[in-house]
């Protein structure tokens, strides 16, 4: 199947109506997680969900749009990290295509891969646009690593990864659980459903 055909199949009308819901789920679950003071963000579950159900391209679009809209209604800083959110969707979709959302322990691997990819996208933005700073307590880790001799790039990647990898593992596990809990009739409305359906039985 050519890319154009695949895209047409991925972006069906159901995918299109799923994406806004997924974006809002990203935002609302993220707010819930910070309301109960969890040490993880959990703000990309919707993106991973779309990536599993409708493929990497739909996942990429969901991630990018989440941060752009968040930038519009909350803080423009979020928009600067739209590429990171896009990469999360893209990598999650590729993991799903490779069958990594077929079992809970595979979902952990997928989460780690997503977290590493997200970190490597986030670091150049952090370093070149924000001088390596997040404006939160995590910056003390960066300070400590700089003091012990790391360069800024190395210090920031360790700081970013230590926050992102556990977060994406938790998100991938939750997304896996949600996809399993979906009614089969509903799941099969989506273009990439065959990939997960067999294994979840």
């Amino acid at each position, binding site marked *: 199947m050519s890319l154009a055909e695949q895209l047409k199949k991925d*972006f*069906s*009308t*159901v995918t*299109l*109506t*799923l*994406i*806004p*819901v997924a*974006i*809002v*789920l990203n*935002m*609302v*679950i993220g*707010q*819930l*997680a910070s*309301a*109960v*003071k*969890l*040490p993880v963000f*959990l703000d990309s*579950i919707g993106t991973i*969900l779309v990536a599993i159900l409708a493929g990497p391209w739909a996942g990429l*679009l969901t991630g990018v*749009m989440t941060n752009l*809209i968040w*930038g*519009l*209604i*909350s*803080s*423009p*800083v979020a*928009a600067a990290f739209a590429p990171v959110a896009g990469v999360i969707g893209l990598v999650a979709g590729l993991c799903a295509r490779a069958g990594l959302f077929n079992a809970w322990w595979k979902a952990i691997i997928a989460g780690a891969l997503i977290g590493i990819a997200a970190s490597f996208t986030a670091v150049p933005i952090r370093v*070149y*646009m*924000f*001088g*390596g*700073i*997040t*404006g*939160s307590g995590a*910056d003390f880790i*960066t*300070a400590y690593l*700089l*003091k012990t001799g790391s*360069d800024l790039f190395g210090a920031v990647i360790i700081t970013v990864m230590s926050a992102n990898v556990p977060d994406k593992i938790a998100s991938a596990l*939750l997304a896996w*659980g*949600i996809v399993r*809990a*979906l009614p089969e009739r*509903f799941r099969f*409305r989506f273009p990439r459903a065959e990939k997960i359906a067999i294994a979840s039985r």
Partner: protein
Amino acid sequence: MARVVSRSIMPRHPSLALAGKGIAFRLNPVTKLTLVGCALLLAFLIPGWWPPWLLFTALAGFAQINRLLTALAKKLLKIILPLAFFLFFIHGLFYHQASAPLTLAGVDLSREGLLFALQMTGRISAALAASLLFVLTTPTADLMLALSQRGTPAAITYIIGATLQLIPQLQARAAAIGDAQRARGMETDGSLLRRIRALLPLVLPLVLGSLVDVEERAIALEARAFRVKGPKSSLHELPDPQSERLLCRLALILTLATIVVVWWG
């Protein structure tokens, strides 16, 4: 539901836009987006510590003309203060330095580090000021309308519009689920393990409940020929004067010329 995007039908969206009469409110959103893009390029691609601050001053002046300076300052300071604190703290103390340190009250500070922090704070402030001026003066409904008038695919404007409408709905649903679970005795504080366990009975009903409507909305869209190609007429038209298109082109050319001159001149 998919509907003609217009100000009269649009419910209260979450939006940062204020009401006002200044020039910043009257420009076409696409014009403003282009100008924000120019400001971002200038802020991040011009070397030196003072150019971003010059740009920032110009943007603050523009905000003042539109009576937006207080609103802008409030939003900006909330974001920039923690960033600036850590920028000066980390780079002032730990920057890799070539010259002799600057000793202040017995603490060795790095000259280069402080200049770097000053430059980054300026860059972020200028970029934030430009983006905030955009969001403070652009109602989301206008943005969507302007984007579709300029030929942005309907799928994109649908995603923006539907998301903005869904946010209050899903927040209300999340609050209702939270109330229901608390009424059953769920605890939302305590140890980490207990808080993780508290999240699941909140998240699963929220996700599954909100996905139920997805299929229905897709059928509604298809029944209204959402996928049909070609231009669609809108109840409201946004002014998109030739003069503003010229302004955009001029701003882009000047920005790129400045960058080229600074780097290779």
